[in-house]
């Protein structure tokens, strides 16, 4: 019974969150907004020369499914998640890894030059950009003594992780930007490659892909709120409401951040990820470890 309710909550959060994300995207980051999604949906489809049809149609679906799967491990109330697995954060990590695969397939499948460049660029940056987020997940598991997000939420009853692990949220923000193809980490869809993996996509397929990007934003921000802001913990209001509020706040912050940081060419970013972000995440794990003991 509670399980069905939680699944319903996941679906509702994803749907409402996607609409909110589209609205915020338009207000804060100059994105298309809900009306543009509708406009894309109404446009006619395009099939490129000899494409990989199966992967072309499935890529947006997998992206959406990964967003939903990721959101399932997030507790909506203290002690209750749709998937309360002892390997919760590993499930989220697997969703991150599969996102790289899905974005690559999206760019590979049209058999066209700009999407192809976008796909490979994303693989080059998206793969190593996952490493800092793995350190962040591992560090969050230290004080909780568990990989389950329910336990991670419980461990924050005293103090939120954003205080105990100060480097965590900024590092995870990089992962969110990379997962949702935004701002400085959007190597799939650059303007120099005419929109990259989406350059040959029109009509419902484009609308679905854009919606999936926003859904992934909801999911990733809910995860950030759970890892660092105590998830559903909070006074007076019921747990889910706190989670929604924190998630919406994270979404606004990520959208504003993404629209205000320049994106270097990929070769430069690759160096930054390995030589700046990765040492920082070592430091983060060390600090979190010492504090947890």
């Amino acid at each position, binding site marked *: 019974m509670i399980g069905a309710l939680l699944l319903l909550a996941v679906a509702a959060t994803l749907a409402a969150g996607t609409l909110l994300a589209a609205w915020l995207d338009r207000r804060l980051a100059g994105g298309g907004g809900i009306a543009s999604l509708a406009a894309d949906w109404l446009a006619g489809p395009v099939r490129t020369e*000899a494409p*990989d049809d199966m*992967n072309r149609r499935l890529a947006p679906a997998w992206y959406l499914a990964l967003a939903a799967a990721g959101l399932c491990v997030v507790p909506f109330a203290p002690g209750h998640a749709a998937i309360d*697995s*002892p*390997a919760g954060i*590993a*499930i989220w*990590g*697997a969703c991150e*890894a*599969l996102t*790289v*695969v899905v974005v*690559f*397939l999206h760019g*590979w499948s049209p*058999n066209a030059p700009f999407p192809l460049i976008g796909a*490979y660029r994303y*693989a080059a940056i998206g*793969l190593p950009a*996952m490493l800092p987020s793995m350190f962040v997940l591992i560090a969050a598991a230290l004080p909780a*003594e*568990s*990989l389950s997000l329910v336990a991670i939420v419980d461990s924050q009853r005293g103090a939120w992780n954003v205080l105990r692990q100060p480097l965590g949220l900024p590092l995870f923000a990089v992962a969110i930007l990379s997962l949702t193809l935004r701002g400085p980490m959007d190597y799939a869809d650059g303007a120099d490659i005419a929109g990259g993996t989406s350059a040959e996509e029109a009509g419902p397929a484009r609308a679905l892909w854009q919606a999936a990007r926003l859904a992934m934003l909801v999911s990733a921000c809910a995860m950030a709120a759970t890892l660092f802001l105590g998830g559903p913990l909070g006074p007076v209001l019921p747990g889910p409401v706190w989670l929604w509020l924190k998630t919406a706040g994270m979404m606004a912050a990520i959208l504003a951040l993404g629209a205000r940081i320049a994106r270097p060419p990929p070769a430069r970013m690759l160096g930054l990820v390995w030589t700046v972000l990765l040492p920082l995440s070592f430091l983060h794990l060390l600090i979190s470890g010492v504090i947890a003991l």
Partner: protein
Amino acid sequence: MTDLVIAALCLFAVWTGWRVFRVDSMVRASFSLMLSFVAVGAVGVVLSAPYIGIATIFMMAVEMMVMAIFMVMFMMNPAGLNPMVMVHQHRVAAVAGGLAFAGLAAAVLAADPPAARVATGTDTVAALGHELLGPSMLIFETAGVTLLATMVGAVILSSRRGRFGPADDGSRPPGLEPGGPPAGRQPEGGGGHHHHH
């Protein structure tokens, strides 16, 4: 019920594994193999080894992504625009496959799996952690160092750019005195990339 699910997952793993050799595109082949491993990971999840199952999926997603990159990079006709046969040396392949299957099947039948069920509520992840920090510490550390050696080896073998110039120029360190012979130990003959100035 569990048995049925496991059987279905195994069938899926075998089917996607078979697809690897039937699709023409290197990308499809790589990700078919990934799906096969995902099914194997899912079997792990069903068998009360959630971490190992999910970690398999996690690792294989990343590794098959890298594999797809290299397959496309080095294989002729990587997208299968011209249909082709993905299996070479049919007879050898069939014999090798049969032998491998027989060997693995024998190993499975000969093994003595623990009969006791894992009690519900056992924290298998913590048990794994204690094992890694306890009896299996040496294995764990050896794995760490082995992987470091892998990293260094991969870099040496694949990188053209070296500390002292491109690898195909010998990547020679500068001399200790200006114009002198390169510093460090000299490779013994047959290196193929000697520069005599």
